[in-house]
């Protein structure tokens, strides 16, 4: 059973979002990294890029396949996890910690309410 921290919110496309006073850190879930297998390349958005919830904001590639990353909330990208350029495996090893992808200064606080709770996300992956 993969880990789904209760304090985070989730997109149906398997990103997690953690809100700290309007700055939302984004990553992919334990379930997503496990399904993809060993990651070998991560393409992140540019700092300063403005995204809308649901926009493509990056790509993670495993040995098997490439998978798009979608912004779970709208706003401006203010920081990216530069360690991933050399160590994409951080996403596999610590998807909720060192393997975070980027941070968004959220422009629409209501976006968070459109995301799934841990229980709802759990139910989604069980039904997949």
């Amino acid at each position: 059973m993969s880990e789904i921290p209760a304090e985070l919110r989730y997109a149906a496309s398997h990103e997690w979002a953690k809100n700290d006073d309007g700055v939302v850190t984004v990553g992919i879930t334990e379930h997503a990294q496990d399904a993809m297998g060993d990651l070998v390349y991560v393409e992140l958005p540019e700092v300063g890029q403005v995204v809308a919830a649901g926009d493509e904001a990056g790509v993670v590639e495993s040995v098997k396949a490439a998978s798009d990353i979608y912004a779970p909330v709208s706003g401006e990208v203010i920081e990216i996890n530069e360690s991933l350029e050399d160590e994409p495996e951080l996403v596999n090893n610590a998807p909720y910690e060192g393997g975070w992808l980027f941070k968004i200064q959220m422009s629409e606080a209501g976006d968070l309410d459109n995301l799934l709770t841990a229980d709802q996300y759990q139910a989604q992956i069980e039904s997949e």
Partner: protein
Amino acid sequence: MGHRTALYDAHLAAGGKMVDFGGWDMPINYGSQIEEHHAVRQHAGVFDVSHMTVVDIAGAGARDFLRHLLANDVDRVTPGRALYSGMLNDSGGVIDDLIAYKRDNDYRLVVNCATRETDLDWMEKHAGGFAVDIRERADLAMLAIQGPQARSLVAGLLSGARAEAVNTLKVFGFAEDGDWMIARTGYTGEDGVEIMLPGADAVKLWEQLLDAGVAPIGLGARDTLRLEAGMNLYGNDMDESITPWEANMGWTLVLNDRDFVGRQPLLNQQQHGHGELVGLVLEGKGVLRAHQQVLLPNGEQGEITSGTFSPTLGKSIALARLPAGATGKVDVEIRNKRQPAQVVKPPFVRNGKAVYKEL
């Protein structure tokens, strides 16, 4: 539920993540594909390849039949040796690639599982007029043990003629003892053996190998290993619309005076020119994947047939079908951006080391 090999329960016990592969439930990995890849390059790994189709070809007409059926010539090798060949259609396209093992009086073929029915139908269709008996050996399991330590570890678990065979076989040589066939062949670019044996024996050998520190390897690492080794995957790098010339298999063609299926189209193509399968090493960002477009400086185009991230090189590599004579730098279109890549001559990796040459 798909077909299961004799090792199905052993895969689950080893933590295998099972997927459907050509109708078989097979392990894609046992945790980390990259760690499995490195285990084979640096130590030893064991693959269950029992899903592959084993076909025995016997009878007084076996030699003549295979000299007609295959684009390589079984007369090229002596008994106890194996031969890689394409089996072609009337247009010279590759129906399958296979290994033919030449025994004293008959032959064994190992063909791909995804093409099993097409292959068997094609063999039956061409068997008319030959005194030949074609018999599938679904009773046999098959293990590949590959890596720099593979042969010494396997030999340590066996005795008598079997240990002797593992220790002394030459590359592409094989030996039989009872129901076992041991061949010094593989699909990884490392030293090692492939063993065809009864299912119950395979389960026992598998357990002994794991106890001896040999890592179980899934189909994921099998693909990255074969691609680093510059070996083709049927369905990706060639199919019925692609001839051996276009798939870097020209070395398997013996165009002597015998009349084999697909011969004339090969001669025509040899005269008129054809595309080539070459290697690419990505210098830009991303990962090369099958079907990405390759753009040459002169405006011509090609296509990637297999691409991946190479765990050994730490770079992305690919096989690509390009117009004849393509060399130097090309661009690959990845997500609507052009990324530079170098054309190379595969293999990329042999015996754990980078060996590719820039073209």
